[in-house]
């Protein structure tokens, strides 16, 4: 059994299936290939995280330039994993897309700071395919392109680095608390109950403070998580003396 970190980028076009959804489907296929069945509920650590990359006129992204990353424990080998990922990418990517795929064996001996640095640089500067392939070769990352210009390899490699930084990414999807909550209603739960209900690892404020288990939270609207301080966390903010789940505007910086 090994732990793998996988990232895809640039698979969609306006009006087509999103990269995040394709990533979710790949996770399900990998689990199914190993277990023979689709799990109804996955561990939070297998969640797909969305990583924002540089928005710049020289970068040919569709609408937001983000990569989708996930970690998975699997007894499958690299070739089997890659085959499943590639088959799904080819099947589901938009015709106009430039898909890239990066696969990293987290148990291998690789230069993690170098990969993290590449990810962080990719948020603020334009990177080239040559730079991405060169670094991937040096670090032992399996990096491959699957259509179009293959430009997505840059984001897929960067996404690995950003996820490894432990301080980047919004978790795809919404958290289920077992209660009906919408924009007009709110519920109060303490941190321990939120963690127990969602599988999250922490509740962290927008200022980086980790909240104690008995701290009461006021939850409303869509409950979204982020990856910060190496934890899958609920991001919260102070509002009129209450701890409330972060707004979309506050989540944007992740």
């Amino acid at each position, binding site marked *: 059994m090994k732990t793998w970190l996988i990232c895809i980028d640039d698979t969609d076009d306006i009006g087509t299936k999103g990269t995040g959804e394709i990533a979710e489907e790949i996770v399900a296929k990998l689990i199914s290939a190993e277990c023979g069945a689709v799990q109804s509920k996955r561990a939070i650590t297998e969640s797909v995280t969305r990583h924002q990359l540089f*928005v710049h006129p020289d970068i040919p*992204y569709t609408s937001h330039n983000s990569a989708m990353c996930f970690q998975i424990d699997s007894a499958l080998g690299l070739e089997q994993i890659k085959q499943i990922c590639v088959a799904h990418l080819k099947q589901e990517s938009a015709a106009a897309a430039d898909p890239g795929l990066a696969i990293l064996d987290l148990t291998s001996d690789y230069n993690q700071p170098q990969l993290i640095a590449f990810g962080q640089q990719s948020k603020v500067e334009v990177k080239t395919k040559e730079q991405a392939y060169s670094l991937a070769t040096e670090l032992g990352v399996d990096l491959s392109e699957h259509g179009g210009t293959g430009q997505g390899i840059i984001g897929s490699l960067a996404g690995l680095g950003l996820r490894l930084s432990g301080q980047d990414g919004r978790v795809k999807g919404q958290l289920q608390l077992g209660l009906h909550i919408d924009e007009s209603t709110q519920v109060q739960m303490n941190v321990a109950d939120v963690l127990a209900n969602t599988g999250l690892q922490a509740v962290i404020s927008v200022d980086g403070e980790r909240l104690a288990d008995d701290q009461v939270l006021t939850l409303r609207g869509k409950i979204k998580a982020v990856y910060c301080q190496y934890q899958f966390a609920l991001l919260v903010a102070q509002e009129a003396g209450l701890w409330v789940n972060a707004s979309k505007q506050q989540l944007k910086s992740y």
Partner: protein
Amino acid sequence: MAMKESLDIHNTNTEQSPEEPMLQWFTPAGTQWQFKFGCTDYAAAREAAAQCSIFMSDDEDEHTDNVFRSCYNCMYRRWQPTSFQCYKRYAES
């Protein structure tokens, strides 16, 4: 003055293109429209989306506004460093 009023009346009677009201928030820029109000003017983005005939929600994970009907949440917006462009015309073509 009389001449100006006459012109205004004439303009009011002219049939408006369905796109014209959107030009309060956008400037034509090639085949796209440039949003005039940047990345964080949520009120403007909501007002524009309320008037838009082809608003289409992007994947919820790409939403950056808590209010659903907002140009910031629309599939046809393409983010730029300091604002976004609308692909509305592209989408209609």
